[in-house]
């Protein structure tokens, strides 16, 4: 089951600095390929999309397929230009969304 995502974003950055954003979320990422003890296929249930926004503008997006490991990790970069807030959204196959918000000051 998905729990609170863990996100590492520097709280402060210099203008023009390229920062790394690291994220991790607990999730089984059930691939839909495994079978249970009685031989029935366990239905697929993964986080299929990860979206990163800064001040409501999409900056990075990842579409995950069942080949992504359990407790998916994702890192990417962002060029800091202004202060604002990151909104990171993980979308589950079942429709639920897990959201993390992080503020960053540039200056």
């Amino acid at each position, binding site marked *: 089951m998905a729990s609170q995502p863990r996100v590492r974003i520097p709280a402060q950055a210099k203008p023009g600095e*390229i920062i790394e954003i690291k994220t991790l979320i607990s999730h089984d990422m059930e*691939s839909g*390929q*495994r*079978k249970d003890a009685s031989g029935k296929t366990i239905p697929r249930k993964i986080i299929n999309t990860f979206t990163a926004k*800064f001040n409501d*503008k*999409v*900056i*990075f*997006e*990842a*579409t*995950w*397929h*069942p*080949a*992504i*490991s*359990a407790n*998916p*990790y*994702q*890192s*990417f*970069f*962002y*060029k800091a*230009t202004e202060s604002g807030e990151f909104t990171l959204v993980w979308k589950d196959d079942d429709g639920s969304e897990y959201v993390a918000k992080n503020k960053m000051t540039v200056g």
Partner: protein
Amino acid sequence: MHVVSSEYSRRDALRLAGFASLAVIVAAGRADATPDEVASAIAKLYGEKKFGSGKIKLDVPEIAENGLVVPINVEVESPMTDADYVKAVHVFAEGNPLPNVVSYKFTPACGKAFAATRMRLAQTQDIICIAEMSNGSLYMTKSQVKVTIGGCGG
């Protein structure tokens, strides 16, 4: 007469064995993505377009002891400006039950076209990575990962 009939039964047995081994091959083919499936997944995205080489740095381990968690880092060479940036990156696996692994969409705001995650690999196989630039040009690279323990469960 007796000889003939035994000849027939042997032929039947051989034929059956032939079908059985064929069935095994078909079943195995169905369980895993093939280079053809990866090619058709790529064709679905980009049709018959040509791919250049270079630009992409695909960082995967040469040997993965645990196929459940295989780190994959992708970096594409690009100035990442509004005029010239990496639009998308797609990763495919030839030996997994499904060909797709991950697709990324970058924007100039990223500053650097880099993304890292962890994937599952069912067996030793080639990983294929393609990058689409903002001007429409395409690049492709390939890297083999040897997997000691498969990562797709039952």
